[in-house]
């Protein structure tokens, strides 16, 4: 089994308060070639976004200090960050969150729990329609 090398040279920010989940996601995306920056909540994520300018952000919705909703709201307020696609991690039990997430400014969502075998492919599928990323992802779509 191979992980597609879709994100070679990319910087990806992952925000999740659950340590194991954060580590698994980080490692998987690193295996796809990206440099991963992690954050334990929205506040930390906001700081690191400014610092690292990631290609995209993978964010949990419910986090302490600042949740994913507020994070995306703050990102959309700043010219320098509003173009960064943010992918929401949604729990199936909260199915209502998906539509809400799209309306709130998330680029798309991926269901939790993450399927390690599919995560990278899922990310490619939801990021392919971001114009700046499309040329880089076409080979893996």
């Amino acid at each position, binding site marked *: 089994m191979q992980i597609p090398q879709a994100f070679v040279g990319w910087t990806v920010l992952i925000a999740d308060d659950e340590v*194991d*989940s954060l580590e*698994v996601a980080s490692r998987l995306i690193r295996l796809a070639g990206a440099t991963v920056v992690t954050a334990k909540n929205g506040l930390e994520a906001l700081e690191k976004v400014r610092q690292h300018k990631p290609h995209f952000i993978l964010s949990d919705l419910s986090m302490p200090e600042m949740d994913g909703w507020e994070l995306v709201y703050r990102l959309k307020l700043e010219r320098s960050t509003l173009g960064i696609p943010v992918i929401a991690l949604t729990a199936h*039990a909260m199915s209502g969150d998906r539509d809400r997430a799209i309306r709130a400014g998330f680029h798309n969502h991926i269901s939790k729990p993450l399927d390690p075998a599919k995560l990278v492919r899922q990310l490619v599928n939801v990021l392919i329609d971001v114009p700046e990323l499309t040329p880089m992802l076409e080979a893996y779509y």
Partner: protein
Amino acid sequence: MESMEQARVRKPISVIQLIKSRLQAKLILLQVIVVVIPVLIIAVYAAAALNQALTQQLTSRELDKLDAKTQTVESLLESAEQDARFVSHNSVIQRYVDSLNGEPDAALVADVEALFVSFLSSADTPYKDVRILDRNGMEIVRVDQSNGVPVVISGSELEDKSQRPYYTEAIGLDDGQMYVSGFDLNVTRGQVDLPYLPVIRFSTPLYDGGGEVVGVLILKAFAEPILTSLLSDDAQDYIIGPDGTYLYHPDSSRLYGGLLQNGTTFATDQPQLEALIEGRDAGTLNDGDTITFFKTVNPNQLPNLHLLVIRQNPASVVLASVYQAVFVFVAITAVTILITVVVASLLSRSIARPVRQLAAAAKELGRGHWNAALPPVTGEDEIAQLTTSFGTMSGELQETYRSLQARTREAEEATRMKDLFMATMSHELRTPLNAMIGFLHLMMYSDQMNDDNSHMAQRSLANSQRLLTLINNILDLSRIATGGIEIVAASVSPRRLARALYADMKVLIEEKNLALELEIDPELPESIHHDEDRISQIVVNLVNNAIKFTQEGKIQLAFLRREERLLIQVTDTGIGIPQSKQALIFDDFFQVDSSSSRQHQGAGLGLAIVKRLVLLMGGSISLVSEPGKGSTFSIELPLNLASKDGSAATRANGVFSKNSQSAPLDAEQQATV
């Protein structure tokens, strides 16, 4: 409630609607009908009867009055006749009569003239003249009353009256008999006296001592008093003589049509009235404007005195008393109706009001307001009983309702606690398992693993995933049963979904050396409104099931369109399901082979979840299978689910409790599965 009543009052409604909608209005109407209709019938009948009675009374009163007047006339006529007889049998007259066979004795004539003068001066009844005619009808003695003074007429002024009826009729009579003329107008020397001077002549034959007729005595009476005594005090009178001419008429130009030959008769003057009276003796006519009373009178049965007396009064005057009586009656009736309506409305209000209040209270109760005001209980009538019973019933209902509410709250609380527990458990069980699975995956991606380690990692992963599936299934089943699962529809591309599922399942199938085929109906729309996760869950469960029971051959996955239904079929070439077990395979924890030596693992929850999810989405599931050859599971779902807003998101509890419309499989349906 009050404001509602007022609102209803303010709204303009017709009388018919009012009567239809209000008990009180019905009661008033009933009572008014019961009273008003008989009163009106009686009033109409009474007015007619009263009118008739009053007319009859009027007729008889007029008849009585006229009878009295006729008697006066008769006594006047009789006294005139007696005067004539008295004069004719006077001794002076007798001597004169006896002398008439010889030469006239001048002295006797003078005596007669003196007698006549004294008679005219002293008689109770005023006479115009008194005369004696000889046997040939020639006047031989005559004394006239002129301006109240008796004047003897003699010589050339005496006239021949032999052609006059008072001579011709009287000359043939026996001694003592009397001829009475009709009403005549006095004529002096060929000229009718003006103003008209009506007279009646009484003539009787004069017999001498030898019993021979030698002359006629004539007494001419003024007829005015006789006519006048027939007149009424207050009415318009007409008196018509035997020849049909007016003897009395308020317009004097119409009088004595026959005598004056001016042609005016009753028949030509008032032909309609004449025609109505013709042939009748007496009666009363009413043409609405005028009341006409008429009567034929014939005083002393004198042939020349057949008189028709007519009296006319304006109907308004005569019937004023009738109208007054009718008016009084109508007034009494109106007052009666008014009183009835008032009493009826009060009475019906006292009946209808509690009923209305009861109706309002019942309505309030129906809305769940327990404190609706009940009418006060007075007396022991049916309404009071109804009110009491209603109060009792309402109290019991309230109590039942409250205890039910309490129980419902308890049940809801218990359910909530269970849901909370399930959610916690779900999270607490799955989080570590997901972490383990994630790390196992990462281990397998590591290039630092040797084959042996990789094998162990792979087995750990497979077992972890089995455990996760089992936990997921148990939790799903539980959440479906408690209504914790919600179907959420969104825009889905069926082709993309089918391909994604195919790609996912292909990996699993290839591990087992089976082939997987995908069929997508070209008729399927580009986009449907559906719950992608639930469709995935169903397909994954069915395909997993097929993989589990198929050792060789292929599995076919088909996404098809059947009109407005989405048909998903999973066909395998596996061991199949015996007919006898086909009805049971959707039950929880069911295994076709439940022996301890069974070779297939699994808790038997997959198909149960599939069935419940399908029903939850308003679909159906069926199975065609032959042992040894394979099985086909067919899922039919609505092509589009109802929109997510409002109640459209179907709650899972419907399947197992109240929502029988989603067609749960019963024993019979399962048999066809």
